[in-house]
């Protein structure tokens, strides 16, 4: 069969583990309005610390050690931007760069293997052995951690401190005039989001039984893509708990999409481009929509339709991609993907064009 349950299952396993990183960004990006670019290094740091401690024989302690180390990294990022006046994006980049060396130092080499190490996953496996649930032990561990983090995070966001963190992202002036130091709330927020990222990294290392110095690269974009998919799923007018659950679902959905793409023989390296596109298009979409509307208005003055022009253009592109997929033996999967995207966009423009025309006739 093309898509089997076991493929979906491992996609979901990855989805719930990566959901932790998406939840961390939900706190730092959606709530605190800080784009924390140290996420990549922080994720690897969590994995590195966790793996070293697990290899030393303490799989549970590994989780806390990873969280502690990443909390510290979050603190440094926050300190740079709140106290030393380093621009927030730059603070993340600086910490991310520094973490590479730190991670190498911790790991001692660029990859670690946890093949014969006891981890929370192997512990769950032996705890469940003999029961019908044993096949799902990885999913259960992932779900357990994500659910606990989700519940604690939601509880936290409802406390006064959590409310102040949300207010800091929404209107820092208002926080100041409510006698709270925004530097303090930013620091707390980044420490917590760092800890959650680190937990995600540690779990992933234990899950795939290895830790690689480059495993975190692109993590921030991937997590943002999951976050955006999730927030789109529930709509941005949703309540905070709904949005947080949406983020977890978004992460799972993202991994399912990835699994399907891999079945289409899309090279794994293409995935980063796809996530980058998702994030860029999603964040740019309000502006793109404005531009399209503006062009349409402008051309409508001279009796032409921008929508129709775009439909035509995209239709030609679609045909081009199909030709490529059929005739050229390179990157067929990519061509199919592009063809589908172009077709979808063409249909969207065609519908918009019809709507405008319909309006004119009436």
């Amino acid at each position: 069969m093309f898509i089997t349950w076991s493929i979906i299952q491992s996609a979901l396993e990855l989805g719930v583990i990566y959901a932790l990183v998406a939840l961390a960004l939900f706190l730092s990006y959606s709530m605190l309005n800080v784009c924390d670019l140290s996420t990549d290094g922080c994720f690897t740091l969590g994995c590195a610390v966790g793996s070293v401690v697990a290899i030393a024989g303490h799989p549970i302690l590994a989780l806390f050690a990873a969280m502690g180390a990443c909390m510290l990294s979050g603190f440094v990022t926050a300190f740079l931007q709140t106290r030393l006046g380093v621009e927030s994006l730059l603070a993340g980049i600086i910490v991310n760069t520094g973490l590479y060396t730190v991670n190498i130092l911790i790991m001692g080499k660029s990859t670690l293997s946890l093949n014969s190490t006891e981890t929370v996953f192997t512990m769950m496996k032996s705890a469940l052995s003999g029961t019908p649930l044993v096949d799902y032990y990885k999913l259960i561990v992932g779900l357990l951690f994500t659910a606990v983090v989700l519940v604690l995070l939601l509880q936290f966001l409802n406390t006064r401190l959590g409310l102040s963190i949300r207010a800091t992202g929404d209107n820092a002036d208002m926080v100041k005039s409510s006698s709270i130091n925004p530097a303090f709330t930013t620091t707390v927020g980044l420490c917590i989001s760092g800890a959650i990222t680190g937990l995600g990294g540690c779990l992933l290392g234990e899950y795939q039984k290895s830790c690689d110095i480059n495993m975190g690269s692109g993590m921030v974009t991937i997590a943002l893509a999951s976050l955006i998919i999730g927030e789109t799923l529930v709509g941005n007018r949703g309540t905070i708990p709904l949005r947080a659950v949406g983020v977890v679902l978004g992460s799972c959905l993202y991994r399912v999409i990835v699994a399907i793409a891999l079945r289409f023989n899309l090279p794994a390296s293409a995935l980063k481009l796809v996530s980058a596109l998702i994030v860029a298009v999603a964040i740019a979409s309000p502006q793109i929509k404005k531009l399209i509307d503006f062009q349409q208005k402008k051309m409508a003055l001279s009796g032409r339709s921008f929508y129709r022009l775009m439909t035509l253009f995209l239709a030609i592109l679609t045909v081009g991609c199909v030709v490529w997929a059929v005739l050229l033996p390179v990157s067929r999967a990519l061509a199919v993907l592009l063809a589908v995207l172009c077709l979808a966009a063409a249909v969207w423009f065609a519908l918009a064009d019809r709507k405008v025309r319909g309006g004119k006739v009436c």
Partner: protein
Amino acid sequence: MLKLTNVSKTFNPGTVNQKTALDRVSLDVPDGDFITIIGSNGAGKSTLFNAICGGFYIDEGLVALDGENITYKPEYERARYLGHLFQDPMKGTAPNMTIEENLAVAYLRASKGRHSFLSRVSAKEREMFREHLAMLNMGLEDRMKNPVGLLSGGQRQALTLLMATIVTPKLLLLDEHTAALDPGTAEKVLDLTKRIVAERNITCLMVTHNMHQALELGNRTLMMDSGHVVFDVSGPERAKMTVEDLLEKFSVGTGKEFDNDRILLSTVQESGPEGKK
């Protein structure tokens, strides 16, 4: 209560844009005073407020509140005793949070120590918020779960006023807080301000561009120009002053014509044929 001694502030010192916005200003505000402040554009009224609330640190001088020197206290610490409203209704509230959540953040001023940080809003507090909102007479008490971004400018400014006074401040600073609202709403917010200030006997400084308002409200009027307080009137002398007297005092005090488009506009409107109240 509030005591400013020789407060000076220069923006962009040493550049061509150097601007002395406050020049050795001294001011003594006794408990319970309600002072209105007028002055031309760029006179330093907002800068004076920022010096008091800690938006920046002053270059020279002292700021003392209730005998305590607060010159070098950061803004967020001063906010425990000070309420500050701006002209822009968007500045004082968090748009993506609900009315209740906004009030809860503002109410943090009442909490002592860090332990209460991890507690949630209690049912008792929610009830208190509801009662306060009901006093605004805007129906906001039934919309506590709505995000503040959905409210009108006037509603937002009324809510900001409530947030600034939900824990009674020692001093309330109002910087043309009704100027961005339409006349009807402005009046409503102003009435609310009067009521809250009177009921709780809050010491208050209010910048206004409306000369009638400046003489009508409160018990003392200051006029500012180029970083100085050029005129300070209270008591019987103020009671018999008219807007014309005030304008004349200004040209005598500064040797130039009064220059504030908003004030002149409002003066013209209100003394026009039908506009006179």
